[in-house]
């Protein structure tokens, strides 16, 4: 049934059998191909347009016993130019070839934009029929297409379609038959008089016949989209351009475009009537946005959502933590150690490989369930369009406080890594906003810190780990806000700038997309964090074996090692936040953690594995991998029951001070977790976590800070971070233990407050001096 295809000689696509040619034209994604399939069914042919590798689809259809040829043209935005070879094909065909009827397909839900092409199609003077496709989507937006009014204004038939569902096919066929029989007389839109005169003047110098093509050539020349090699044509163009500018005060190119946009705007207003009955999706978006973007509710809702994410992640993850922990411990520590012993390796090497490497792997694997779930929920929120709104709510809240609204946005979306968040501040053009934004980022909980939180939560806050992790995230945000607020009023005074944010509509994320996103992040997390923990585990398995003795540097027991000696010397500094001198591994971990936060847990792992190397040797000799795996599997139903029981009693804050109960409840089998349980109370553990959250960002973050704001502000950020971390941890610990030593606690808390006050005064002085310098130099140079 195919009657047409391309001919070798040129662009002749017109029907060889003399059938009327109906060309389907429209913007890309207006549904042309769907309409084409609807009209032609199986009677179609796919080939290439002559000279280009652009797909050409043609076919036949019939209505009322009359056959016609249908050409599915590539989508095109404008007949004047632009786009690739495919748009050129459509343009040339519509301007140069014999077309008996153009079926202009427009997306009713995006009508104003699509009507711009309709303007140009009407200018060609060729018979036209308007197919208003996707009317269902327009209705879902609360817009009712006014087919009759549109037809009257255009002077051409208008047919409403939902091509995707096959609706409107008969009406379209009938309209095509009618239009082929009696070509409609369209109301061709006109340009302002000055432009029409210019078109006529330039057109008169062109050699082409007085057709639509000549008019379009003239328009192209006037708009500067093309140039003629003939000097007299160019002279006419320049003269016409100057004349229009003199007459109207506007360039002809702008007047031409303005005429099309204005016409489309007016016509769209006539063609679509607002019904106020929005589709379900948009109603849902509207209602949800009224809540989540509400000035007063936005922020609490965001915190609630975040709270639920961590509670559910931790509680549900806890069901599987013991399984992952015990199973990976059986395989990677006991099993690996046993295999290596069987292979005849010396004990020290077995200890290092099974304890350092296997222990590290075991530690990372243990946290896969809660961290994986956290990533899953964050990916869901991100994909659903909520996170963008959370950032918007945050912006409003912050601007109310006189802070740069965009400062927290990078970290809210994804709660990932401080480094890209700092680098992302580059697109903030206001130097003050950029500086404040950069200085806030190190306080946001990155994924590396999540490992530390999880490790401590498993041991000390097994029943309310989610709340503790949430609290730490919120504390990070609060300190970031406080920092920006303080700096904005002292060292970096100025007004916050508004910022641009575009909100996507809500959508139900696809399970595949969310799972894939969460999996990618988890994979990177496990590999990156895992590598660091394993490597540091090995180094710190060796390092604690060397110490300074009366005979010089010698192999020593771990407690006399250089690492222990150095850490013990610094330990008194951390005493006010609850770290005793004999808890030197905690201090070592903090020192090493300045390089990367993952190292905190890596260090603890190395040291504890080393301390217990002798016990572990017995495990390697009798690994009982099978029994341990079985026990691991049995933990799942037990924990699931506890999880379901815990739903009725979500808050267990009373356990904060009860070290023994928490330790027993932890059931931590891992040496590192057991080591933590021995070393901290829940209170000192929380203080330690707060220190970890706030103190020196990792080396990469420091590098990013230096690049973005220079050495001075980087140094400030590091020192301020350490000081804030110490003060916050100290205040938390001292408040928690106030009853035991009230006078000491008062002294420490007062000292922290006084130091903060001093800092504020110093920063204010700095700010005043900076303002004077700026005023003197007449420049704005903050960074």
């Amino acid at each position, binding site marked *: 049934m195919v009657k047409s295809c391309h001919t070798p000689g040129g662009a002749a696509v017109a029907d060889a059998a003399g059938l009327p040619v109906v060309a389907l034209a429209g913007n890309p994604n207006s549904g042309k191909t769907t309409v084409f399939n609807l009209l032609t069914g199986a009677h179609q042919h796919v080939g290439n347009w002559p000279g280009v590798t652009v797909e050409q689809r043609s076919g036949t259809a019939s209505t009322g016993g009359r056959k016609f040829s249908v050409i599915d043209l590539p989508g095109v935005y404008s007949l004047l130019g632009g786009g690739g070879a495919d748009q050129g094909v459509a343009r040339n065909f519509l301007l140069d070839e014999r077309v008996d009827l153009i079926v202009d397909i427009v997306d009713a*839900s*995006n009508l104003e*934009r699509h009507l*711009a092409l309709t303007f140009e199609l009407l200018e060609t003077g060729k018979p036209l029929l308007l197919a208003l496709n996707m009317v269902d989507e327009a209705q879902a*937006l609360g817009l009712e297409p006014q087919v009759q009014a549109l037809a009257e204004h255009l002077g051409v038939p208008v047919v409403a379609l939902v091509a995707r569902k096959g609706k409107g096919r008969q009406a379209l066929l009938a309209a095509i038959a009618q239009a082929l029989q009696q070509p409609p007389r369209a109301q061709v839109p006109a340009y302002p008089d000055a432009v029409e005169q210019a078109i006529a003047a330039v057109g008169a110098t062109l050699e082409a016949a007085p057709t639509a093509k000549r008019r379009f050539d003239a328009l192209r020349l006037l708009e500067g989209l093309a140039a003629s090699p003939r000097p007299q044509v160019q002279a006419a163009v320049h003269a016409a351009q100057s004349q229009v500018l003199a007459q109207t005060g*506007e360039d002809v*190119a*702008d007047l031409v*475009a*303005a005429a099309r*946009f*204005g016409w*489309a*705007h007016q016509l769209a207003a006539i063609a679509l009537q607002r019904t106020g009955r929005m589709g379900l999706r*948009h109603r849902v*978006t*509207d209602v949800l*946005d009224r809540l989540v973007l509400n000035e007063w509710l936005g922020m609490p809702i965001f915190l609630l959502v975040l709270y639920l994410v961590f509670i559910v992640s931790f509680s549900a993850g806890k069901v599987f933590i013991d399984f992952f922990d015990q199973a990976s411990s059986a395989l990677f520590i006991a099993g690996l150690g046993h295999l290596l012993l069987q292979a005849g390796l010396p004990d020290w090497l077995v200890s290092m490989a099974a304890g350092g490497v296997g222990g590290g792997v075991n530690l990372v694997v243990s946290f896969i369930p809660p961290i994986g779930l956290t990533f899953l929920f*964050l990916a869901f929120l*991100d994909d659903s369009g909520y*996170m*963008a709104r959370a*950032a918007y709510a945050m912006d409003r809240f912050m601007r109310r406080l006189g802070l740069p609204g*965009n400062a927290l*946005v*990078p*970290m809210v*979306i*994804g*709660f*990932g*890594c401080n*480094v*890209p*968040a*700092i*680098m*992302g*501040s580059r*697109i*903030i*053009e*206001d130097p003050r906003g950029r500086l404040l934004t950069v200085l806030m980022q190190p306080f946001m909980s*990155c*994924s590396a810190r999540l490992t530390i939180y999880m490790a401590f939560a498993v041991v000390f806050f097994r029943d309310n780990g989610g709340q503790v992790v949430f609290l730490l995230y919120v504390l990070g945000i609060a300190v970031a806000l406080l920092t920006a607020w303080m700096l904005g009023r002292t060292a970096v005074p100025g007004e916050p*700038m*508004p*910022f*641009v*944010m*575009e*909100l*996507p*509509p809500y959508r139900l994320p696809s399970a595949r997309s969310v799972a894939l*996103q969460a999996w*990618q*992040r988890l994979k*990177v997390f496990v590999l*990156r964090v895992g590598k660091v923990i394993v490597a540091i585990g090995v180094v710190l398995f060796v390092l604690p074996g060397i110490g300074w003795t009366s005979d010089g540097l010698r192999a020593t027991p771990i407690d006399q090692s250089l690492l222990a000696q150095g850490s013990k010397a610094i330990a008194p500094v951390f005493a006010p936040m609850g770290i005793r001198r004999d808890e030197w591994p905690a201090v070592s971990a903090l020192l090493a953690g300045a390089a990367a936060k993952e190292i905190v847990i890596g260090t603890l792992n190395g040291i504890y594995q080393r301390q217990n190397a002798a016990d572990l040797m017995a495990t390697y000799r009798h690994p009982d991998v099978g029994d341990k795996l079985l026990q691991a599997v049995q933990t799942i139903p037990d924990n699931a029951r506890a999880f379901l029981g815990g739903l009725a009693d979500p808050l267990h804050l009373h356990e904060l001070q009860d070290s023994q109960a928490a330790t027993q409840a932890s059931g931590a089998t891992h040496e590192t977790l057991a080591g933590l349980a021995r070393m901290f109370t829940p209170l000192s553990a929380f203080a330690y976590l707060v220190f970890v959250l706030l103190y020196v960002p990792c080396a990469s973050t420091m590098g*990013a800070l230096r690049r973005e704001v220079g050495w001075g502000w980087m140094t400030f950020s590091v020192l301020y971070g350490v000081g804030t971390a110490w003060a916050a941890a100290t205040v938390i610990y001292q408040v928690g233990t106030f009853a035991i030593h009230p006078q000491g606690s008062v002294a420490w808390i007062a000292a922290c407050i006084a130091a903060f006050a001093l800092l504020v005064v110093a920063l204010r002085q700095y700010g005043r001096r900076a303002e004077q310098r700026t005023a003197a130099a007449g420049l704005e140079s903050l960074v």
Partner: protein
Amino acid sequence: MNPLFAVRDSLRAAGLAGAAEIAAQLQVPAEVAADMLDHWVRRGLAERLEAQPASCSSGACARCGLCGTRTPGAVLYRWRTPANATPRTAAITLRSVSATSP
């Protein structure tokens, strides 16, 4: 006023803006606003800034991969006149907007 010239005036006044912002201000669909802004870019009077998602703009994602944003950045437009050398707005952009943004 013709919407194309209204867009021009609006961007000229704002200095730097996204299509959605202009669209909301002038009550036109975001895509149409973007088309009109692109006209002024073609005419050399405005420039188009491809703002990547803030948390990915370092290109560090390949390295850290943790930021979780994998969406394309949005586009901002800046009016080109000496008077607007210091833009009045700063931007962190999240996602390209759809026609149906509220």
